[in-house]
């Protein structure tokens, strides 16, 4: 059985009380390995979630921004004192959440959840782009529907861009020729009753290309609202085909800071990088801080291929 191994028993990023924008939580980071550095684009919140209510209450408004941390070893990070992305326009009044970052043909793309705060369901997948990882343009709605957990594939396949997204409770996939008009929406993987992925599933970060196919990390929620991470392998030429779906979770909440936080019992990933033959998977712990766990790439692929049908 294969599992992610934690590279740190303590969080690698925690909130900064001196910074208003990231004093409550830092979690769910997109990740990219570029020019010898790991860049983490993490979701930061200025205050805790409000008390449960039928509609978002302005007096309990929490706003998410995207902060940037960099590392030379993937574990020890240095952070900027200001966010690199903050909400713009009516769709982002309550901020920008859960970024996934991909590089396609030299341009960086960040897909994230724009949250208007008009109702709890009033969020949209949105997209920004950058040439340098610090200055982001766009803030455009990617899919005009209640949807989240989106990521682009890091290259075109058969001339088409591919997008993973989530119509509850399943992971969906769509494709496009222009990154704007998305078609061929279909379910890629479904939530499975009875076990650790019974309530809903969604992707982690963008998939990784290997000779054997696309490695896709994803999250799954059970009936007790416990979030775990799983892994699957998609066909290299036709990513709508699932070659292997590993039946066991590869990471689950175990440590104190993964079990207790703003939302209990959550490990949730928005990104992973490949460094020296291993995947470093970055994950939010209990919606409050960031951790990292890794798996050897060849061991993972061997384990997945052993289970291919």
């Amino acid at each position: 059985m294969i599992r992610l191994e934690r590279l740190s028993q303590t969080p690698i990023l925690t909130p900064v009380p001196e910074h208003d924008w990231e004093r409550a939580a830092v979690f769910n980071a997109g990740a990219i390995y570029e020019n010898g550095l790991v860049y983490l684009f993490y979701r930061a919140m200025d205050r805790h979630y409000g008390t449960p209510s039928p509609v978002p209450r302005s007096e309990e408004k929490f706003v998410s921004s995207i902060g940037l941390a960099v590392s030379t070893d993937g574990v020890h990070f240095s952070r900027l004192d200001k966010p690199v992305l903050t909400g713009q326009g009516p769709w982002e009044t309550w901020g920008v959440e859960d970024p996934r970052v991909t590089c396609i043909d030299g341009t960086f793309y960040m897909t994230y959840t724009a949250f208007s705060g008009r109702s709890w369901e009033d969020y949209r997948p949105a997209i920004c782009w950058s040439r340098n990882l610090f200055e982001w343009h766009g803030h455009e709605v990617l899919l005009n529907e209640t949807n989240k957990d989106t990521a682009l594939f890091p290259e075109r396949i058969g001339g088409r861009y591919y997008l993973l997204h989530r119509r509850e409770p399943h992971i969906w996939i769509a494709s496009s020729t222009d990154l704007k008009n998305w078609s061929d929406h279909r379910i890629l993987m479904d939530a499975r009753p009875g076990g650790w992925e019974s309530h809903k599933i969604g992707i982690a970060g963008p998939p990784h290309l290997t000779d054997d196919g696309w490695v896709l990390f994803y999250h799954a929620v059970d009936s007790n609202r416990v979030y775990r991470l799983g892994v699957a392998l998609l066909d290299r030429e036709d990513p709508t085909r699932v070659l292997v779906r590993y039946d066991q979770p590869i990471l689950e909440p175990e440590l104190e800071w993964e079990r207790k936080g703003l939302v209990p019992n959550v490990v949730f990933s928005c990104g992973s990088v490949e460094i020296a033959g291993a995947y470093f998977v970055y994950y939010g712990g209990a919606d409050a801080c960031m951790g990292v766990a890794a798996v050897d790439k060849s061991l993972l692929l061997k384990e997945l291929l052993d289970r291919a049908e």
Partner: protein
Amino acid sequence: MIKLERLSGEPVLKPDPALVWKRAAVFNTAAIYDRGLFHLLYRATDIGCHEKYGEYRNSIGYAVSTDGIHFMCLDKPVMQPGEHVQELRGPEDGRLVKMGDTYYLTYTGFSNRFAGDYRICLATSRNLIEWERHGVVLGEPNKNASLFPEKINGRYYLLHRRYPDIWLSWSTDLKVWQGHTKVLSPLPGTWQDARVGIAGPPIKTSQGWFLIYHGARLADNSYRLGAALLDLNDPSRVLARQAEPVLEPELPWEKEGWVPNVVFSNGHAVRGDDIYVYYGGADTVIGVAAMRMSDIRF
């Protein structure tokens, strides 16, 4: 007359009392405009940066901006004291150039094991965050050094400072430096009568290499910035030198600080026709002033 105009009445970077390594001062910064961003590699100290305040420790911090005025700063230094035997008290006063895909940082390695224990050192990077040290460049007490941003007739050129003058030398391998020549000297009875040293790397123009430098005055140890022009093919030839300073301490944070009456530059960012010159104010904070390439006239 060439003059720098301040882009902000306030410092663009200040010390951060919450971070020990830069709680006292941020000043003397290398700079570059690259990939659409303004990058700074600034000197920071934990206490006032003069022996009279105690054994201050130097680090190099990284800041980045999209407009050249509003900066975001990493919370940890990219270079720290104690990482090299020549840097027991830390790296000081970086100057930055990019050749090919590599960034070159020349800086002063300060150890203070004995009198005059400071040397020009070199580090390289491909991302501005992770630096590989190459050790001492010149085995002599020396500082205020910068590479030219490109080779001239197949040679690397280095400006440096043998007290109290600005010197030039060349190398084919960045290791052995030869042909040391005096380029600019203090001018008696003026604002630059004590010593001179370069600011940032020379800027290539059609007229020649445009060089901003600092000059100190004997009477009160005040520092100003001046401008000169060096020959494109033979940069040991000074084509012009402006008599008046291009920037002098005027604002309160340039006149008052750990070392009063200092504007001291290590770098600039060139975006189109604009030259953004970054400078330390009173060895305590960082400011920015600008000019246009098209206004270079001597």
